[in-house]
């Protein structure tokens, strides 16, 4: 059976350090404003008592990618073998409809190349048995690649606050939400 690869982002582990984002950027030598992965601050009342919480997201490699439907040149393909949504920059004409259509705003316009750009789950690394940069460079090991056809991890969610409804494109990314700890705060 074909694989269904997706990111599993452990928000409980994430310390919002941005190493995933910057290591990806450094490895792919992306322009200053470009981010294939971004770390975002979550609302501080996420688990009730105030905490500093972050979530790291990249392309969600959706089951029904809106980018693919929007793209007029067919630059997007969802790989049969593992479901990775790949953007072929060679074909891209920079119309930016994919960025509009993606509920997560993932494809970003590269003002220097004048083409769109997005996370490829480092498929070329995966193909030779290496893990994606963000996965292998997160100091907290908070990002994993999971074959969701193989394992269905328990306690994960596909929706975190501020995120788009997963029923639109069926993103493969799953999240582990933080567990609230006890807090004794001064009055």
């Amino acid at each position: 059976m074909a694989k269904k690869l997706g990111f599993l982002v452990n928000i409980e582990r994430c310390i919002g350090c941005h190493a995933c984002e910057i290591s990806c950027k450094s490895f792919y030598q992306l322009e200053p404003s470009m981010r294939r992965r971004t770390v975002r601050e979550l609302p501080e009342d996420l688990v009730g008592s105030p905490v500093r919480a972050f979530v790291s997201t990249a392309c969600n490699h959706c089951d029904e990618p809106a980018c693919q439907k929007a793209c007029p040149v067919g630059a997007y393909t969802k790989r049969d073998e593992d479901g990775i949504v790949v953007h072929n920059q060679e074909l891209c004409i920079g119309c930016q409809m994919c960025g509009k259509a993606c509920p997560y705003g993932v494809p970003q316009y590269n003002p220097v190349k004048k083409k769109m750009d997005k996370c490829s789950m480092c498929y070329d690394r995966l193909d030779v048995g290496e893990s994606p940069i963000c996965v292998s460079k997160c100091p907290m090991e908070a990002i994993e690649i999971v074959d969701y056809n193989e394992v269905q991890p328990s306690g994960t969610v596909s929706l975190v606050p501020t995120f788009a409804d997963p029923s639109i494109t069926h993103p493969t990314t799953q999240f582990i939400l933080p567990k609230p700890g006890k807090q004794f705060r001064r009055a």
Partner: protein
Amino acid sequence: MLADNVSRRTFLKGSAALSTLLGLGAIGSKATNGLVPTAAAKSNSQKQQFFNACPRNCYDTCSIVTTVEDGRITFVTGNENNHYTKGRLCVKGNTYPRIVYSPDRIKYPMRQKGRGSGNWERISWDEAYTIIAKKMLDIKKEYGNTLPICLNKYSGNFNILNYATEGMLSSIGFTTRAQGTPCDPAGSDAQAFDMGTAYNNDPEQFMDAEYIILWGANPAWTSAHSMYFIEQAKEKGTKLVVIDPLITQTASKADEYIQIKPSTDGALALGMIRYIMDQHLYDEEWVNNHAIGFHEFVSYVKKNITVEWAAEKTGVPKPVIERIAREYATSKPANIWIGFGMQRHTNGGSMVRAIDALAALTSNIGKKGGGVNYIGGETWGFNYHTMSFGAPEGTEGEADRYVNMNNFGAQVLDAQDPPIKMMWIACRNPIAQDPEPNVVKKAFDQMDLIVTADLYMNQTVEYSDIVLPVTTPFETVGINVSYWHYWMNANEQAIKPLYETKSDLEIAMGLSKKLNELEAGSCTFPVSGNLVEWVEKEFNDDIRKLFGVKSWDELRKNGGTVKASEKVTVAWEDLKFRTPSGKYEFFSKKAVEYGHHPLPVFIEEYKANNEYPIRCISPHWKLGIHSQFQHIDWLGAIQDHPFVEMHPDLAKKYSIRENDMVNVRNEAGYLTLPAKLTKTVPVDTVVMYEGWWKDVHYTENFNVKALPSDMGDYSKGQRGIAFHDNFVKIEKA
């Protein structure tokens, strides 16, 4: 070297006239500065990998793997051979390619005409050395000694070879030195009184702990690699307690977070101790056999401390204190990590002694996975060969003179007989990082010559006469160890030094050469030498034995990193303390010698006055280390301006809304920055992160006074700074 004759034949009158006018041959005739015929076949375009060591003032001191293609760095990442770095760098380490290849690096030695004018002229290294050496010799002639020359160097680069700067200055005679550290002194003294020295367990042992208390430490931001082990321990069932006045990123991950009133941590520890004593949860055997002064301590506690008092003092409810005390005392091993922030108070050292006592009487010291972990230096036993040359024969005087790094400006101004006339600054940005920067500027004004060696333009360089361009770790050779973990990392030269940059060691050799040219025998520092030979000289038998590696070369050939023998990774495992008594000292005569109470007692905290009622804490920022990294644009894309965090209730009192500009002011100065409202800070405290200087005309130190902490002079020569006993008033700007 280009075929001049061909050029000349082709150039007609204009070109010839220009060449004559400039007094130069045709272009291409200056071999060192232009294009030359290809010397060899095209350089190796294959991918090469080198081991580097992150030399920053950081717990994690990572081992780095640098990919080089065509002689240039294409990727920098962590070394998997190092089980602490685990092949992963922090966010800052990931920006190294940008740091090396930014067009804005300082490239050449330069001289400023008019301090602060921005009028710089490029000079050669020879000119720079000449100006500096002449000034040094003039000073020696005028004052009969070299004490008017002052070195202010600290933690910007901990490569062992970088001690060459200190060594070079010692090689000309006795000079004035900025002494002490703004970092850890109060806590280090406390541990020195209690145990003889500060010595921590291997942080990888968080995995072995049953119970972890992070006391005023925020490793999620300042030691991401430690945070990994803590999180892993938590996931396998270890309880994680965080005690902090702020809900830090680390506190956000705690099983239990306890918000304590700042500067009352000693009271909490003593309250826990009282409960543990009352409940007989302490290890009687241990305190009797391995400690002295326990009975005196018991009577102090029984007489002066109650849990109710501790609850009142700290703001932590009595049942919580009791429960945490019981849990801590009954979990084995239980691990405490004391952060540096906690001791940056006027009672910081005594608070650390109280926490040490808590760990001691529950016999958590000397246990794998336990410990009262603060800082350590067991792996630092190098030869420091660069500092071994001594003063030249016939040097007047007996020793270097010290000024307190933590009150640098004022003490430089006060220094007389002789006054300080020349300053050498390396691995430091005092105008951004010192308290009361305006006083430091005044001290600078008094100098005849200020020399700064640095990578990038900053406030201190702006205020210097001569700037010397230095190398990044990737362009030089070195060896690094950590004050926290137990690994030793080799630093190979991965690329040629860009432009005319030199390492501090090369600068030391160059200057020595010039000094000896101008006055033979005026400097004992070697005038030449190969960097690899220099680094090999740092190894001695103790280091070889400790790490099981013969040489730097062997280290670099075998993975670039090696961990010290397991024996040293458990602090005080043999329970042979380095105190005068050889035991753990609840009662320390040494403390008395330095003017402190012999016991770990509670010292009243520094309090706010009515005019400046709000505490202002300036902790470390996650996207920088002190003044380093924060100006790097990759990180600027994440956060591009400084801010002050405040509780919404406090903000409301001053009608301040999110992003409103706020004046933060006290006697020392003021700054204006946008507000960030968050319930993660207490209502009576504001927080500004340390080290921001890019694009603003201030630093957070503008309103930090040079208020000393209680300890530091025993182990570091000078007391620390009570950075967090800083009180301000705020108003909407």
